[in-house]
């Protein structure tokens, strides 16, 4: 395809983007889809122009947050970013980002399913594969199939350096036989537990098929594992976190070990899952040759990404939004809430649109039982709010603590009215987008939005 054709296609796509902005619907992937229809090689061609190359991040949970941390690190390193920061992570969104932004370094979070195809086009300097959990089975299929697609990525010469989670046995094994993968993981066994959560994935030894045994579980099936017959075990990670202290919704602190150097880190984001995101971001930065000081500065500067533990001020009230979309991610959010003793009202929003997953059965794999001993007033909202309330009933939460209001607007107003303490919102993806809009309309400080 000629340079001219790409130029014309880019101009048309930019025009589409401008029209959409005038129409008030910014941030969609529509211009990218136009670009790809007119110039199918556009992603490869525009990506090749990035002077400092690009990096790719994929995971079931934490893509957007990890990318936000890497973005801070790369800015500290002096890069100008081309970055799909709002999470449009399929081909259209990435193409739209490439025409919409100018910079010298590309940072792309990529949907798990589309990773092989997009890596072929982007030819990144490094690919971070951070975790795989059960997620939206109606959309992605079973996890085995995603692992097989990721194996193609691991074996492709176009993937650059592999940055892998040593604690995730589904991912660590992808580094077998690969030239010099960089592993990251957690070393603080006090931060984990000796038994798994419900519905953890069962990973098996690739040699003998025996189920791995664990000395510690951190998040879901992430932990320290080995084959009972001695065939395979967790690789020793080069980039680690140790001495982890969690402070409820207030964040955490830990020691970041970058090879021989160690640094004390204060992280503004809550929960062990965000420690994983920070260590993953550090490992990706190391693979890109970023200096340690810039990595530390970037992690400490990072604030929660779009709808991920975002803290907003709504007419004088503190409000946190924490996306929930699958059992493993929801469990970590619920665990963080259970460990935090500050008074609060909870608004949980369950939608079943395509981007949320039509199948809502996952709420039965999430441990809402963790809220049973709290005293929160809980409002259930969204298109499947009744089933959510039913889930809470069977989790042992007293029905008098639970209100049901299917419409998001009245539910939000009701939750704000019932309590003067902090409001914590746990929405699925499309509910998160709607609730952010409603919060702006109710006076949320828009400066705090990404």
């Amino acid at each position, binding site marked *: 395809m000629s340079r001219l054709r790409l130029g014309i296609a880019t101009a048309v796509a930019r025009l589409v983007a401008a029209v959409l902005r005038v129409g008030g619907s910014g941030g969609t992937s529509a211009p990218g889809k136009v670009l790809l229809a007119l110039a199918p090689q556009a992603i490869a061609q525009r990506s090749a122009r990035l002077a400092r190359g690009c990096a790719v991040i994929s995971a079931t949970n934490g893509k957007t947050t990890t990318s936000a941390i890497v973005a801070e690190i790369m800015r500290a390193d002096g890069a100008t970013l081309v970055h799909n920061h709002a999470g449009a992570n399929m081909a259209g969104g990435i193409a739209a980002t490439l025409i919409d932004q100018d910079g010298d370094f590309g940072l792309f979070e990529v949907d798990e399913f589309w990773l092989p195809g997009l890596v072929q086009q982007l030819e990144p300097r490094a690919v971070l594969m951070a975790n795989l959990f*059960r997620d939206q*089975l*109606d959309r992605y*299929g*079973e*996890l*085995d199939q995603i692992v097989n697609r990721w194996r193609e990525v691991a074996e492709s010469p176009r993937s650059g350096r592999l940055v892998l989670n040593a604690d995730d046995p589904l991912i660590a094994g992808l580094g077998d036989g690969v030239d010099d993968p960089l592993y990251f993981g957690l070393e603080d066994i006090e931060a984990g537990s000796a038994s798994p959560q*419900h*519905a953890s994935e*069962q990973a*098996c030894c690739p040699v003998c*098929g025996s*189920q791995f045994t664990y000395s510690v579980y951190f998040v879901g099936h992430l932990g320290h594992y080995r084959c009972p017959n001695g065939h395979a075990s967790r690789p020793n990670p080069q980039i680690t976190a140790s001495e982890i202290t969690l402070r409820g919704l207030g964040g955490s602190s830990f020691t970041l070990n970058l090879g021989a150097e160690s640094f004390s880190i204060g992280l503004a984001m809550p929960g062990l899952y965000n420690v994983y995101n920070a260590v993953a971001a550090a490992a990706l930065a190391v693979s890109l040759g970023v200096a340690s000081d810039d990595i530390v500065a970037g992690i400490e500067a990072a604030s929660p990404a779009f709808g991920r533990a975002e803290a907003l001020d709504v007419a004088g009230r503190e409000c946190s939004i924490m996306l929930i979309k699958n*059992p493993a991610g929801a469990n970590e959010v619920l665990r963080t809430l259970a460990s935090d003793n500050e008074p609060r009202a909870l608004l949980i929003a369950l939608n*079943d649109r395509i981007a949320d997953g*039509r*199948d*809502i*059965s*996952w*709420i*039965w*794999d999430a441990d809402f039982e963790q809220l049973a001993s709290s005293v929160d007033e809980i409002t259930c909202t969204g298109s*499947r709010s*009744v*089933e959510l*309330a*039913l*889930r809470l*009933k*069977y989790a042992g939460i007293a*029905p008098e603590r639970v209100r049901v209001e299917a419409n998001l607007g009245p539910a939000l107003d009701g939750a704000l009215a019932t309590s003067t303490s902090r409001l914590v919102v746990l929405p699925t993806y499309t509910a998160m987008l709607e609730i952010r809009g409603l919060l702006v309309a109710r006076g949320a400080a828009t400066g705090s939005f990404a």
Partner: protein
Amino acid sequence: MADLKLRIGALYPDQMNIYADRGNIAVLQRRCEWRSVDVSVTAIGLGEPIDPEQFDLIYLGGGQDDDQRRCAADLIERKRDGLVAAAARGAILLGVCGGYQLLGRWYELGEERIEGVSLLDVETIRGEGSRLIGNVAIETRLPGAPEGAVLAGFENHGGRTRLLDGAQPLGRVLKGQGNDGSSGYEGCRAGTVIGTYLHGPLLPANSWFADWLISSALGDDLELSPLDDSLELEAHAAACRAAGIAGS
């Protein structure tokens, strides 16, 4: 109802749990507890045999293909005789999705054939086309339950299941795909052995069926004390609406 006891056996809870099967067990358990019916849940894992005298209700959920293969081999080798004997003495056996397929005769994936325990006269073949995915509602005919009582849920299966030799379906499809997307039948029932593709999970959205299972497992003439099911009925109506029929 203090003298009653429901003994539940949960087969392969570590492997066959993919569609939140835990929700089905939680509903059976709670609905017994709320009525002061003594209830126990025992996990039966790989390698363990089944003592048919020890269970009134045995549950088998769905898993990923590899897990299902491992469990199928174990089911034939270690558990078939126990399951057959449990069914013969009137215990309820409920298989959902992959569990349904394994209660049948076999599951064919191309050249490969995974043998089932043949308690249901059905065969399953991995279809050429795409998976059958979506909200689903069926009408049932069960002894002791209202004629046409509706089950609503979500289905997601690649296998197409066919009823053989006069096997009876669990229900007739009102909306959705059912056993194979074309026959109009969903699930299979032979006495107290029941298989279905409905998850979502099945029992939270269909509390009447949870109670039917509990009372059938405890003894046919038993009338369970009523519970405040207002939320359960609303959830059932919502699941019906999601499938595209009026909630009942």
